[in-house]
């Protein structure tokens, strides 16, 4: 005698806004993958010899490539930071006495380490 109504899911990945934030987090992973492939092809070029390496570097310098890298940078930043935001949920519970360590603190710690490592790498790259 029951005729329950089952609401269709619709475009749940766009609305409400917090689900769109999540959808973007998942989509930006594609850009991170893309960058990994670019790095990998660089490694392959290096192995193939000086000529391949030179053409790889040339390709990198192309305005389209620079644009793509800019896009990848933004996407990777978004991906990292949104993951830092959920990091407190993915790691073992930490307590100070009987009080749980606030999640915000864990997120901030991640971001601080991220910034320090990035700056250090940039400095190292500049020095090199």
């Amino acid at each position, binding site marked *: 005698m029951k005729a*329950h109504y089952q*609401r269709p899911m619709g475009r749940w990945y766009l609305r409400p806004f917090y*689900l769109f934030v999540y959808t973007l987090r998942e989509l930006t992973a594609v850009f991170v993958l893309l960058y990994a492939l670019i790095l990998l092809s660089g490694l392959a070029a290096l192995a193939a010899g000086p000529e391949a390496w030179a053409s790889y570097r040339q390709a990198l310098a192309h305005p389209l490539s620079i644009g793509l890298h800019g896009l990848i940078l933004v996407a990777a930043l978004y991906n990292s930071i949104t993951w830092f935001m959920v990091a407190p949920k993915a*790691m*073992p519970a930490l307590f100070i006495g*009987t009080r749980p360590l606030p999640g915000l603190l864990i997120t901030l710690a991640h971001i601080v380490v991220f910034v320090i490592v990035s700056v250090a790498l940039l400095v190292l790259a500049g020095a090199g």
Partner: protein
Amino acid sequence: MSDGSGQIDILISRYDPERDDQPHTERFTVPYQHDSSVLDALLYIKDRIDGSLSFRWSCRMAICGSCGKMINGVPRLSCKTFLRDYAPGPLHIEALHHFPVIKDLVVEQAGFLDKLPEARPWLIREQEQALADGPHRQSPRQRARFASTSACINCLLCYAACPQYGMKPDFAGPALLALVERYNADSRDQGRAERMPLINAEDGVWSCTLVGNCSAVCPKGVDPAAAINRNKLESAKDYFLRFLKIGSGGAE
């Protein structure tokens, strides 16, 4: 925002299974005071305007877990949500998303209730202590380990917030997996192994993609997303250990 009193328009998604094929929206105008909750508005409508409006409620103080609704698209306890925060309106109230709707704002909860025993949500001991031996000992620090997960009121807002549950109704879901973690994290319990099948299952922790929205809507600070994702680690460990055992010729 408004701090005073006034009138507010409320749009309610109505569904009568004996007449309707799908829900429709009806508009009601209700007066409100500074401290009027959405539940107060629903009771006002039922008492004075249309007695046929159906919804669940009971304690009025955010502890029984009955009155969850979608309020402007967000799952909330209607007793703990105030009209003043939505003035001048209109305010849209629907049944909790992802559950089959029985009538108006009432959803079918069997999907959750029937799965409860699978969490084995009771204290499991290898050897039960006799009553005469008195209580187990547990330090305040040990108790703190499951204080948040034991605060779940089963209001099911987390299910309405979880798109994975919406797409996979067999997913154990946030509250059930938080309940598993509540007992696993209890220093008195020795039943982790009995609860691993639910954690490891296709519909267990691995159906969660860490949207994190369950924790955001939880009115009791349970943080089911954390409870689930910590168990992914446990599940991976469990898998690996079993793999080793079989690999080394362990007969099981």
